[in-house]
């Protein structure tokens, strides 16, 4: 075991998979010599060389389009999009090509690739260094969407993603990159994709979240405890595939639900959770399912801390549902 940051856990997953399997290649902007602007690929260039730790020309559609071809030929590319806000030039390649390749070719071609990308706010990055674009991709059949919230899961999920046979959007909560440390095995291990985890068990209300919102929900749960409210925090970890069973079981136990995500509220992934609960467990509900989310505005600069869901706002929602 080593005490690692989330960033180091990602680095460790990449390093081990590259050691284990020479088909694994990382590529992207600044990922090679410089080790990535966040240093997620630090040291890979020295250990594996320029052919496997590739500085590409500056083109996201090029990075993803080329990765698709590499994957079709049998490699395991792990392209990095420097910030999720810059993924859009590659949107066509991701949603039209990577996502549909297996289906449209009758399984003759597949795209086993992992698109790693830092996402999320709270770092004074304004419109274009803060977005949480999971909903666009979760809405696209053929893609898996995975979002770790701690170092242990980050490494185990990334290894699973690299070994997965389908394209995975692997969203890394950059606000937690260095601010969170945890015990991580040095050897290789996997965390299965598609299984939520109950980060904190409770009996009064379920709070569903993922990524950088998990620490915020835990803070809110602590606050709630002072008010004798026992909160269950469920870390979804993977939006596609979604662990519906764990969600429904939790709601059956608590009878109440709040969903927390930092993307704009309207059309966000939280709506999907609320709908599933309504479809499958409405008879267990003792109050409305509330969403605590980002605002329906572009991501702001000066007022970012007001835009972002915080523990106070999550706690208010918890109270509201409890008092319903």
């Amino acid at each position: 075991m080593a005490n690692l940051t989330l960033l180091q856990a990602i680095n460790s997953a990449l390093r081990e998979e590259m050691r284990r399997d020479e088909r694994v290649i990382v590529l992207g902007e600044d990922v090679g010599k410089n080790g990535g602007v966040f240093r997620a690929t630090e040291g890979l260039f020295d250990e594996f060389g320029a052919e496997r730790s590739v500085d590409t020309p500056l083109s996201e559609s090029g990075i993803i389009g080329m990765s698709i071809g590499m994957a079709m030929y049998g490699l395991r590319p792990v392209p990095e999009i420097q910030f999720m806000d810059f993924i859009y030039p590659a949107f066509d390649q991701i949603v039209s090509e990577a996502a549909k390749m297996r289906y449209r070719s009758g399984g003759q071609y597949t795209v086993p690739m992992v698109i790693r990308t830092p996402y999320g706010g709270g770092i004074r990055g304004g419109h274009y260094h803060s977005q949480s674009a999971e909903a666009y991709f979760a809405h696209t059949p053929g893609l898996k969407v995975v979002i770790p919230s701690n170092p242990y899961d980050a490494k185990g999920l990334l290894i699973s993603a690299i070994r997965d046979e389908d394209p995975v959007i692997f969203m890394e909560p950059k606000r937690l990159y260095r601010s969170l440390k945890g015990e991580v095995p040095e050897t290789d291990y996997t965390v299965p994709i598609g299984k939520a985890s109950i980060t904190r068990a409770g009996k009064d209300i379920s709070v569903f979240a993922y990524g950088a919102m998990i620490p915020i929900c835990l803070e809110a749960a602590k606050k709630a405890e002072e008010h004798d409210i026992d909160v269950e925090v469920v870390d979804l970890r993977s939006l596609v595939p979604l662990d519906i069973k764990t969600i429904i079981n939790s709601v059956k136990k608590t009878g109440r639900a709040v969903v927390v995500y930092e993307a704009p509220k309207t059309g966000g992934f939280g709506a999907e959770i609320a709908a599933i609960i309504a479809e499958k467990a409405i008879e267990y509900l003792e109050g409305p399912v509330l969403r605590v989310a980002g605002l329906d505005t572009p991501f702001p600069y000066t007022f970012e801390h007001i835009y972002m869901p915080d523990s106070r706002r999550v706690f208010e929602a918890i109270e509201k549902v409890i008092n319903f």
Partner: protein
Amino acid sequence: MSSEIIQVLKEDGTVSPLFKKETDLTEQDLKKIYETMILTRVYEERSLKLQRSGRIGFYIGCKGQEASHIGSAYALKMDDWVFPAYREPGVLFLRGIALKTMICQMMGNAGDPTMGRQMPCHYSYKEGNNGSVSSPLATQIPHAVGIAYAAKYMKHKIVSLTYFGEGSTSEGDFHTGLNFAAVFKSPVVFICQNNQWAISVPVARQTVSESIAIKAKAYGMPGIKVDGNDVLAMYQVTKDAVERARNGDGPTLIESFTYRLGSHSSSDDAARYRPEGELESWEQKDPIIRFEKYLLSENILTPESIKKIKDDAEEEFTQAVKEAEKVGLPPLETLFTGVYKDMPESLREQMEDLINEQKRLGASEDNSMAFPL
């Protein structure tokens, strides 16, 4: 020939007699260009200090690229349009923006016309026909073509000029933009500021063409490579391209061969990736020093007048910061206004809920982290 490099002002500060005879730049013009270059340099040095002392959150600079963008922008008329990347504050100075407005933008306060919505150095300045800076690279290139098309359609004799880095020439929008402009014979001037580095990636990783300028050939337009640290050459080459565009002869690609003397931004450390000695050799080619030599040798400026220009710029900056720091935060409503012309009901509801929440519970705690890149 697109790989030859055009130079007017030599590194020793002398110019060819032909240029002197033919140029339309007056002493007044030369002084104005020099003053703008100095203000731009001072703006950078002082803004980086503001950033380090935590008074602004981020800065992205243009040290070494002053001649490149100021010389070229000086060739435009005021009703021509500019689509900047993010390393062209000198264009805003030329176009008359108040220094205080720019500092308020960096502070994200109520003096910022964009109400603190964007990161520092992402200015929007319509009064100066200067587009709206956005981080996603190369996106402005096709916009410049659209403006040019629209203006031509409306029979306005304006030209649209856009800046971008050499890294951005790898994006699809660069290729689309040039192709569209050539097909529509639009009055556009494309200026690639080839500062050799796209964060840590050298130009050799963007292209193996013998130059950026030569790419123009494939799109069917002239491509010219210029010494970007030569303010007079930048002016002259851009002026010719602007004239061609205005006369209906279509677009031009200009490669300004220059160097980023600073780090990529306040959160980067170029020492990590720059080869040893490279910075020092380019510092010898500092565009301001070269221009100064010329102005001194022609007696257009004296050591005393140079000192005064520099002192004035420092003083202007100090005053503007003082003024800017008096300005408070934008009203909370501005978080919601401006998403649409008319605010949808659902958004109004979010706004009212949020304003009530902040009144009821006090302002949200600000625990944002510093920008990591």
